């Protein structure tokens, strides 16, 4: 079984636990350390988006995080039961803006799209689901000794 998952409230105080979850997965499957930071970044950005947008709801959404080792890649899936919100609908930041006019909004999701090979959103029943995959040649069950 090459999948692990965890569930928590959408609360910024959960970030250290999420980091531990990710790092445990990385060491269990002996994945390349250089790619760990990519997933830490994606998980922080996506989770904090849920925290920010979920704060408009009358209760904090629950967040399900799962990570799956596949052949030649790793997939991270973040689901929440908050109000419908497609982070991929956010406009990309204006990379040509000056120091004085540059805005920070939307930067997190933009970074996720840059560091991952595929990012897909779907709303299914009462759940937002964001699925991110990074290709990593040579990892996964088919390559296990």
């Amino acid at each position: 079984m090459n999948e692990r998952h965890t569930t928590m409230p959408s609360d910024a105080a959960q970030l250290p636990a999420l980091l531990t979850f990710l790092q445990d997965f990385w060491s269990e499957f002996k994945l390349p350390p250089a790619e760990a930071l990519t997933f830490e970044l994606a998980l922080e950005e996506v989770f904090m988006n849920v925290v920010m947008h979920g704060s408009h709801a009358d209760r904090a959404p629950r967040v399900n995080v799962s990570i799956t080792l596949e052949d030649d890649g790793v997939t991270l899936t973040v689901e929440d039961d908050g109000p419908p919100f497609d982070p991929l609908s956010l406009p990309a930041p204006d990379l040509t803006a000056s120091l004085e006019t540059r805005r920070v909004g939307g930067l997190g999701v933009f970074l996720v799209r840059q560091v991952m090979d595929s990012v897909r959103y779907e709303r299914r029943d009462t759940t937002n689901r964001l699925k991110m995959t990074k290709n990593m040649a040579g990892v996964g069950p088919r390559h296990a000794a």
Partner: protein
Amino acid sequence: MQTRIESLGRVAIVTPSGRLDFGAAALFQSELESALANTPAGVVIDCAGLDYVSSAGLRVFLLVSRAAARSGIALVICSLKPAVREVFDVSGFSQIIAMGADRAAALEKMPQ
């Protein structure tokens, strides 16, 4: 994350180390704002010990660089590790924030 701040003449040298994530960003921002409040001629943020930065950390670098520019304080960020450098590059921040390859290069950009 830990941040050390020291003075070199009229230049403040800020040395963050560890992970600049959402949880660390607010404190790092207030430490940098305190450094700016002392009105140094310049600020060098030496990131040799910085392992990780997210958009929450980038936001602090942006706000503090903007505040420094408005106050006429030279601010240069230097010695980024490759993984952190990538986040600066992808976000376009390397284009709008003054960067130095290492501390010596950053100090050369400080007012004499």
